[in-house]
């Protein structure tokens, strides 16, 4: 029949003859975000005879059994490749073809977007501005869980890369201290996948002012009309992570069908349909775009190639946004108020605290600042402990009180470095008894040598008698003025901390450098 038809009508009917030939079904492990392409796949089946059966699973790195899948279609294959590398597998990476692109961006409610822009010269928002607003409690955002969702993970890596500010890919030393504590404190919504996140937000729009997700998901959400007001999409100034939704061939035996699927998906007319339906950006150059997809996406950030870096990042970040307020760290500052601190040094110290309270306009400062939920203890000491104050940051008032405590403090004679540190560890031990396992660190700032109170040896003996948890609290000495560098290094080494030198920069710089170190 087919033959007759073709013979009679020649080329134009050839398509019809191929239709019911060779029907093949491929099973695909797909990111839940890709549910929006499903309606187009009928066309694929009609044109090529290949049927894709999509199984949607939120998995950041395609972990779990893949044996029964012919193809995988994640938002990105980066985490998968890192996992291959970590396991030392042969570099037999599957054939993989980018199908669409979408950057990870921030969607803000219009009012919050306006407010944030007003605070930024030039009005171009960065991840640092988002982190700053999250830390001071004026921005609550939702983001998918980086441990389970590739979108969440891309977002986390993007923010952390911006926080490190090196212009290159994250390295081990960039994540050894957690620069995202303030950013994290603003997360109020999460989800196993970004679909779950967005569904949660649609149900409870008052729970957040911003969503971090793919541009495509936010444009789709806006277009669906389920929001009281559409989110304003911001492509952060300091860079983004781009997803390219690669279709990967897991079963080499299905190579031929795979090629047909890929060729079909990358056809200009299909790319156009994909774009119109999903708001992802076409990979080819010849598909005219609507205005919303012509916005510049900014510069792509380098993605780390060390699995341990991403792992550390995720361990640090944990899983905020589950309805409970993210628990902040506790930092005990031991500040030298001996008379030698008078004048310029004290001005430097006050400036450092003001900077950490939100005055620092630099990107590093915005990431490093004090944040809502953080617990701060300041101990002033000279020849003995002079005075101490603990606040849990709930609002600007708490930070003002802390700054005035530092700013108006009186000086004393002598320098009892080790007595002060002993007091620091007592505070730590009490705090850990109240909240076991809570992250806590000690910052010891001094500008002179110990000449009063406990000797280092006496301190050491007292320290050895502490419980395991308190003993494990690291001390980060800030070397200033004429402090005893050797002794400070000794205590840092003994407790797992690190010395920073404020003489070569400033106290503000030194404090920033050890923020988030534990």
């Amino acid at each position, binding site marked *: 029949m*087919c*033959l*007759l038809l*073709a*013979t009679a009508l*020649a*080329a134009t009917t*050839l398509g019809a003859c191929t239709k019911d*030939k*060779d029907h093949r079904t491929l099973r695909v492990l797909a990111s839940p975000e890709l549910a929006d392409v499903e309606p187009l796949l009928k066309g694929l089946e009609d044109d090529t*005879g290949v049927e894709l059966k999509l199984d949607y699973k939120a998995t950041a790195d*395609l972990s779990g*059994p*893949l*044996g029964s899948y012919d193809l995988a279609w994640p938002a990105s294959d980066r985490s998968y*490749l890192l996992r*291959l590398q970590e396991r*030392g*597998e*042969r*570099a*037999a*990476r*599957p*054939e*993989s*073809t*980018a199908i669409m*692109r979408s*950057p990870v961006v921030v969607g803000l409610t219009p009012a919050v977007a306006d407010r944030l822009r007003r605070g930024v010269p030039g009005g171009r928002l960065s991840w640092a501005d988002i982190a700053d607003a999250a830390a001071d409690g004026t921005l609550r955002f939702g983001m998918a869980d980086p441990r389970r969702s590739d979108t969440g993970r891309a977002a986390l890596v993007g923010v952390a890369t911006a926080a490190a*500010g090196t*212009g*290159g*890919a994250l390295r081990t030393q960039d994540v050894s201290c957690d620069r995202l504590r303030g950013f994290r404190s603003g997360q109020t919504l999460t989800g196993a996948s970004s679909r779950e996140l967005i569904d949660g937000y649609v149900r409870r729009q008052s729970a957040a002012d911003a969503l971090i997700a793919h541009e495509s998901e936010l444009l789709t959400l806006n277009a669906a009309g389920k929001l009281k007001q559409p989110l304003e999409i911001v492509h952060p100034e*300091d*860079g983004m992570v*781009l997803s*390219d939704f690669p279709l990967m061939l*897991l*079963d*080499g*035996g299905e*190579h031929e069908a795979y*090629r047909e699927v890929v060729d079909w998906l990358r056809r200009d007319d299909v790319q156009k349909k994909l774009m119109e339906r999903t708001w992802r*950006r*076409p990979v*080819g*150059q*010849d598909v005219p*775009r609507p205005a919303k997809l012509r916005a*510049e*996406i*900014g*510069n*792509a*950030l*380098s*993605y*780390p*190639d060390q699995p341990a870096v991403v792992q550390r990042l995720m361990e640090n970040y944990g899983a905020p946004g589950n309805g409970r307020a993210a628990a902040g760290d506790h930092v005990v500052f031991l500040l030298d108020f001996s008379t030698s601190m008078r004048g310029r040094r004290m001005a430097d110290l006050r400036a450092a605290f003001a900077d950490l309270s939100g005055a620092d306009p630099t990107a590093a400062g915005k990431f490093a600042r004090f944040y809502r939920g953080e617990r701060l203890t300041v101990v002033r000491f000279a020849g003995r402990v002079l005075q101490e104050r603990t606040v849990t940051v709930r609002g600007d008032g708490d930070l003002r009180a802390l700054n005035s405590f530092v700013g108006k403090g009186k000086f004393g004679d002598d320098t009892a470095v080790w007595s002060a540190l002993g007091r620091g560890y007592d505070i730590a031990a009490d705090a850990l008894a109240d909240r076991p396992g809570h992250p806590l660190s000690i910052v010891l700032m001094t500008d002179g040598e110990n000449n009063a109170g406990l000797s280092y040896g006496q301190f050491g003996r007292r320290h050895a008698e502490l419980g395991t948890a308190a003993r494990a609290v690291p001390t980060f000495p800030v070397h200033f003025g004429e402090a005893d560098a050797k002794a400070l290094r000794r205590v840092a080494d003994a407790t797992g901390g690190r010395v920073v030198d404020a003489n070569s920069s400033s106290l503000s710089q030194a404090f920033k450098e050890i923020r988030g170190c534990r």
Partner: protein
Amino acid sequence: MPEDRRPPTEEPRLTTRRPARRRHRYPRHVVAAMPLALAGLLALMVSGNTLRPFERVTTIDGKMASKSDYFKDPEVQRLLLKHGIRVDIHRLGSRGIATQSLRGMDVVFPSGQPAAKLITRQQQRSVRTARPFVTPLVLGTFRDYAKTLVAAGVARPQQAPDGGETLYYDLDMKKFLKLIEDQKTWNGIDFDEHTRRGNAGRVLVRTSSVCESNSAGTYLSILAFVKNGNQAPGTERGRHQPAGSGSGPAADPVLDVAQQVKPLINLQGMAADEQADSYFSDEGESIAPVSLIYEHQFLKHQVDHQKKRGKQDSRRVLLYPSPHALTEPELISLGERGDRLTELMESDAALRRRAIELGFRVRFSGEDGTSEQLNAYLREHEVQVPTPNPDQTKVDAPDLNALERIINHVGSCPPAGQDDGE
């Protein structure tokens, strides 16, 4: 492959499963075309056309990297089908091809000589090969970045014939590497003065994985050559050692150079495949300011741009590295079916002619160089002709073993060939 299915509780299986030989000897469209061929048979017999309609169409499985551009071209496919050949492309990096199993393949087409040599030396028998064309390794960038590099004294524009904006720049690799080593950011070399948007990212070249791709391996050869004082590492015997230099007889010059070039590559973090694909996409400039590509990809793009839009793509421009490196892809046959293809590539003038139209440099008999016909084709299509770099220093690639050691050191590449034993 039901026997290949594993119980869902088992360890995640990470490698790709081996392609089973179960392709269709007669692809659907060929089967479908047969009746048509039948219809045309009479006409063919009358016209005396040599095309034999009942000849079997052979599907040739080939692993290839960027040179799949050639076999993906519809005109090449048409020419091959006239000879009863259809090529099924398995896309993979060139070095990846060399280090993985070739079972089930008829040909492989690595993009350069290092990978080609790795493959041919593993073959048990002498193999038929064809080297139909060459193409230089280049850096694809964008106008504002090129201008920034010119202002930094690192690049020099080539003269455009009509005095307009040039598509090509010569890049002083030694100075360029200095920028990377000095940890310069694009804004740090005043990129923000050449555009309304800045870029706080480091100056770097985006490459595909050094463990898997020919382009990245060849780029490593350039870096190693430059860092080694314009000499291929491993050939230092006659070189003057500065008096009192610390390198004793035990020093390993190859490893030494590898250590120097490693940070220049690893700075980019995770490497990304398909550099050209992202470079030519609308998001290209956001994805990477400088991408490692091949000249043929750029020239093909410019010719297409002229044809479609009546002008050159003046936003995308090329940096020709100096010293430069030429790549020579090699089509390697692994059996009888493959032999047919390599023979055709050697003998068929139309296939070679088409290579020029796809931006490759092809040597024809009677020509001194490989560029004359390509240049003529570019002129004909109103695309600026690149001029050879006045500094003709060509990178001497390290010998294969030295290059392999550099690649393995820089990329911490997994050992090769394990999946052959399955």
